[in-house]
């Protein structure tokens, strides 16, 4: 009989549902739970946390979740693979070890994969003559001084496989690819290694990586989605000989159809023939989707090419400050009064001697998201005026924040909705995508047995 494993995703991003991973473990049969906590911006936030406190810099939500779910993990034998390590996998591992000990559990292994964080190796690369050139502009990272906040390599999936091979029940990584969280257990269980196999596992991972976006969340025909308040998160059923079926636990809301899965496949897609990962180059134009039962879609036909000689690096750096503020303007003549309010703010700032590298004026309710596509609702009964500035001068951005509230009493009538205090300057974190030769990056697996 062919062996089949069930891999679920219970977290599509940091801030996703806190109950979804619980229900993924408790709601039906499951072998592996994958959890994605890292967005590009997350790495820079975590790096800041680690600088302030050396035992921080990982997804603390993950530790709270593990603490809640540990008895079920032991009872059901579910393995967990999460990129919750952020910029400090070691500290995350220690927090999990502490939790396991508190529960009085023994014999459990917790592994981490690291080597992705190259923040401390940038000088070394510069000395070696590496440029870490920006993939979009070609400029060298070292061409001018920059306040770099984080630098992480999107790691290949093999180290996660090595971590599973230690017998670990919980595998914690730093920066890897999101699909790699799903590909890793497939490679570990079935030894998949050809480009076509790696591409199939990668595509299964792509379908799962954004949580409910493949099970009815964000679906165009939202009215048809049953029990959206109770969406089941996606599960890939993978058989040893290469059959991948996308489904969800029984008795959950949402739906898995060719349409919901197709939408997720197109999400954040670039060139569909060349979906480049550290493991392979997947061809999305080879994918065949077919319904195979209630809430079941089977993925076949996937073709792939071998991986490239490079790994992608995501570097974040400080690129000035931004602030946004908003007010609500009631009718009559809401839109006209909102335009007047915006004009007043920009004139007052100019009179006070402040100009900005970039400003933004939005009239929410009139037609911002689809500007130029749908007619403007200029007779809207009320309008939210949203103003924003960007500048490298923090004081100028701070001054903008002081100019919103006065409008309530010194502008046109019927202005309200100023709450939450003055808008504060926030750092603008910019991204520097680069490539690095694979041989320059080493991965490490450390395992602790409790």
């Amino acid at each position: 009989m062919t062996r089949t494993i069930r891999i679920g995703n219970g977290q599509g991003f940091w801030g996703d549902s806190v109950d979804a991973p619980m229900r993924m473990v408790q709601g039906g049969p499951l072998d592996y739970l994958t959890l994605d906590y890292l967005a590009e911006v997350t790495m820079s936030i975590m790096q800041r946390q680690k600088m302030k406190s050396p035992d921080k810099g990982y997804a603390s939500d993950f530790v709270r979740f593990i603490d809640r779910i540990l008895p079920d993990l032991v009872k059901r034998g579910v393995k967990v693979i999460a990129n919750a390590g952020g910029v400090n996998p070691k500290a995350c591992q220690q927090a999990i070890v502490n939790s396991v000990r508190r529960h009085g559990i023994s014999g459990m292994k917790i592994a981490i994969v690291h080597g992705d964080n190259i923040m401390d190796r940038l000088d070394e690369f510069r000395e070696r003559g590496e440029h870490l050139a920006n993939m979009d502009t070609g400029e060298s990272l070292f061409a001018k001084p920059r306040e770099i906040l984080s630098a992480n390599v999107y790691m290949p999936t093999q180290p996660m496989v090595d971590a599973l091979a230690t017998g670990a029940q919980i595998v914690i990584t730093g920066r890897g690819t999101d699909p790699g969280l799903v590909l890793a257990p497939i490679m570990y269980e079935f030894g998949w290694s050809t480009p076509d196999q790696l591409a199939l596992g990668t595509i299964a991972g792509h379908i799962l990586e954004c949580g409910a976006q493949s099970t009815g969340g964000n679906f165009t025909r939202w009215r048809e989605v049953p029990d959206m308040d109770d969406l089941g998160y996606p599960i890939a059923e993978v058989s040893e000989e290469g059959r991948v079926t996308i489904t969800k636990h029984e008795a959950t809301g949402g739906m898995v159809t060719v349409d919901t899965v197709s939408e997720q496949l197109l999400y954040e897609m670039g060139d569909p023939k060349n979906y480049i990962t550290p493991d392979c180059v997947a061809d999305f134009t080879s994918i065949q989707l077919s319904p195979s039962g209630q809430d079941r879609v089977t993925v076949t036909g996937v073709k792939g090419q071998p991986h490239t000689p490079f790994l992608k690096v995501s570097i974040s750096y400080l690129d000035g400050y931004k602030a946004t503020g908003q007010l609500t303007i009631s009718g009559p003549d809401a839109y006209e009064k909102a335009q007047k309010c915006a004009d007043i703010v920009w004139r007052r700032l100019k009179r006070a001697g402040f100009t900005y590298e970039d400003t933004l004026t939005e009239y929410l309710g009139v037609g911002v998201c689809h500007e130029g596509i749908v007619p403007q609702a200029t007779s809207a009964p009320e309008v939210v005026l949203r103003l924003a500035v960007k500048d490298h001068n923090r004081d100028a951005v701070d001054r903008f924040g002081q100019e919103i509230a006065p409008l309530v009493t010194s502008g046109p009538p019927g202005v309200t909705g100023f709450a939450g205090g003055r808008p504060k300057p926030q750092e603008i974190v910019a991204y520097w995508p680069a490539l690095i030769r694979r041989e320059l990056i080493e991965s490490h697996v450390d395992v602790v047995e409790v």
Partner: protein
Amino acid sequence: MKRISLASFCHARSGDKGDGSNVGLIAYTHAGYDIIQSQVTAERVKQHFHAICRGPVDRYEVPNLLALNFILHDSLGGGGSQSVKTDAQGKTHGMGILSMNVEVPDDFEGL
């Protein structure tokens, strides 16, 4: 011939891609795919999003999913984390493309 909106025979999803967005447009039927394949050109998409997309538009065909994928360069007001726009990640661009009108035969059935 008659004019109908893409919303009547397609679905869509969008997200951020660097300083731009990607818009996946998916037809429900092969007949529908033939219509979008021939009429929803990169130029039409650029014109449709003229107030949002400041850069060029790339177009890719994904016939196996009855889909087209568009990259709308410079459509977020800076990259996803740098933008101050409400829709800094292009999440609404997918719904935006569905209001485009195309010409179809009178007996066209796209669902």
